[in-house]
C-alpha cells in the first residue's frame, strides 16, 4: 500500500502529468476573478475565501480523469483489481485517492494563503480558509474517484466526470465556505460548520472508495 502511494505520488509530481498544471489553473482562475468583479479590495476581501474554495474545487476536478485512466492504459489497473483478495480494492482506491490528493491538491492548499493575500483577505480569515481547504478537499478527491471510476472506459470522459461530480460536492463547498466566513463574521460559530466539514470528509472517505471499487470491478 505504501509502495502504491509513493509510486502514485511520484508519478503525480513528475512534469507533464498535470500536478503543476493544476496549480497553474488555480492561479489563473483566482487571477481572473478580480477582472470579473472589479478590483474593489473590500469586496474581494469579503468573497476571497469563497473564490479560493471554488478555484480549488475546479482545479482538483482537472486531474481526476487521469486517476484511473493512466493505470488502465498500461494494464496495472487490471492487476490492482485482481489483487482484490490480498488488498481490498476499496482500500487500494482509498490509497490512490490520498496519493492524488497529495500530488495535485496539497500544492493548491499551500498556494492558497499567497493568493488570499493578493485579494486582501485578513490573516484570520486566511488561516480559516486554508484550514477548511485542508480538511475539505480530500472529500472532493473521494467523490471524484467515483466519477473517475464510472467513466474509466470512456475515451473522453473528462467533462462527464465534472458534470457527475460537481452536484455531489455542493455540501462540501457550502460548509467549507460557511466555516471560513464564520471565522471573521463574529456571531457565527466557526467550529460547527468545520466539524460538519470534517464529518463529510470522513463520510465520503468510506462511501467514495467503496462505490469506486464497485464501479471499477464492473468496468471490465
Amino acid at each position, binding site marked *: 500500500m505504501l509502495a502504491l502511494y509513493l509510486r502514485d505520488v511520484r508519478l503525480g509530481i513528475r512534469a507533464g502529468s498535470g500536478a503543476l498544471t493544476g496549480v497553474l489553473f488555480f492561479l489563473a482562475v483566482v487571477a481572473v476573478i478580480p477582472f470579473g468583479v472589479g478590483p474593489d479590495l473590500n469586496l474581494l476581501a469579503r468573497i476571497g475565501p469563497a473564490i479560493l474554495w471554488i478555484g480549488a474545487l475546479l482545479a482538483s476536478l482537472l486531474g481526476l480523469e487521469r486517476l484511473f485512466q493512466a493505470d488502465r492504459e498500461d494494464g496495472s489497473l487490471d492487476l490492482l483489481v485482481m489483487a482484490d483478495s490480498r488488498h481490498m480494492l476499496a482500500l487500494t482506491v482509498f490509497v490512490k485517492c490520498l496519493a492524488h490528493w497529495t500530488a495535485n491538491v496539497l500544492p493548491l492548499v499551500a498556494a492558497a494563503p499567497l493568493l488570499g493575500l493578493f485579494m486582501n483577505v485578513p490573516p484570520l480569515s486566511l488561516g480559516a480558509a486554508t484550514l477548511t481547504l485542508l480538511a475539505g478537499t480530500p472529500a472532493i478527491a473521494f467523490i471524484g474517484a467515483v466519477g473517475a471510476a464510472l467513466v474509466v472506459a*470512456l475515451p473522453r470522459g473528462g467533462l*462527464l466526470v465534472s*458534470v457527475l461530480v460537481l452536484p*455531489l460536492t455542493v455540501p462540501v463547498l457550502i460548509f467549507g465556505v460557511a466555516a471560513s466566513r464564520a471565522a471573521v463574521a463574529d456571531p457565527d460559530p466557526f467550529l460547527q460548520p468545520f466539524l460538519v466539514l470534517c464529518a463529510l470528509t470522513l463520510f465520503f472517505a468510506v*462511501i467514495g472508495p467503496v*462505490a469506486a471499487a464497485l*464501479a471499477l470491478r464492473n468496468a471490465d
Partner: protein
Amino acid sequence: MSETANPTARLAALANPTRFLALADRLVPWLAAAAGLVLAAGLAMAFAAPEDYQQGITVRIMYIHVPFAWLSMFCYTLMAASALGTLVWRHPLADVSLKAAAPIGATFTALALVTGSIWGKPMWGTWWVWDARLTSVFVLFLMYLGIIALTRALDDQGRAARAAAILTLVGFINIPIIKFSVDWWNTLHQPASVFRLDGPTIHSSLLWPLLISALGFTFLFLTLHLMAMRAEIWRRRVSAMRRLAARAAEGRLAEGGAS
C-alpha cells in the same frame, strides 16, 4: 416463509420481458384512465377550494407544485430501488426501469422548480433564492441530468446500467437532505405541513384537493414510467434484431465471397 417467497417469485417471473410487456399492455390503459379521471377531479376540486386569506388565488399553484416536488423525490427513490435491483439481484428490468425513469424524473423536477419560482415571485418577491430546499432540489435536477448523460455515454448496455446504478445510489444521499432541509436550516421555504407526526397543519378544505391531485399525478407518473419502460424494451429488441440481421448478412457475404 411462503409469504416472503411469493413477491420475490412474482418479481422473478416478471424478468421475462414478454410477460412484462403483456402486463404493461394490460395496465397502461387503466392507469392512464385513472390518471385522467383523478387529475380532472383534483383540478376541479383545486378550483373549487377556497382561496387562502393571505396568498389569494396564487395558492392554487400549490396543487401542481407540491405533487411535482413529491414525485421528483419519489422518482429518485424508485430509481435507487431499481439500482439496488440491478446491483444486488441483477434483475434485467431494474435497469430498464432506472433508465426510463430518469428523463421523467428530470422533467418533474424541472416543473417543480419552474412552478415554485412562479409561485415565489408574487409571494416572496423573487424568482429564486439560494436557500437550502431550493438548492438541494436544484442539485437533484443536476443529478438527474448527470445520470441521463452517463446512461447515454456508454454503448455497452450492461455496463451503462451498472454505472448508472452506482451513481444513483451515491446520489441518494441528497434525498434525505431535501426532505429535512426545511427543518435543519432556517429557510425561506416553509417547513413540512402535510407529513408531520402531529398531523397536517393545512386546513382540510385545502388538503383534500392537494392529496387528490397528488394521487392523480402519481398515476400519471406510473403510466409514463410503464410506457417508457415498454418503449425501452422494444428499442432493445429492435437493436438486437438489427445486430442479428447484420451478422447474418455478413455471414452470407462471406459465403458468397468463398464460393
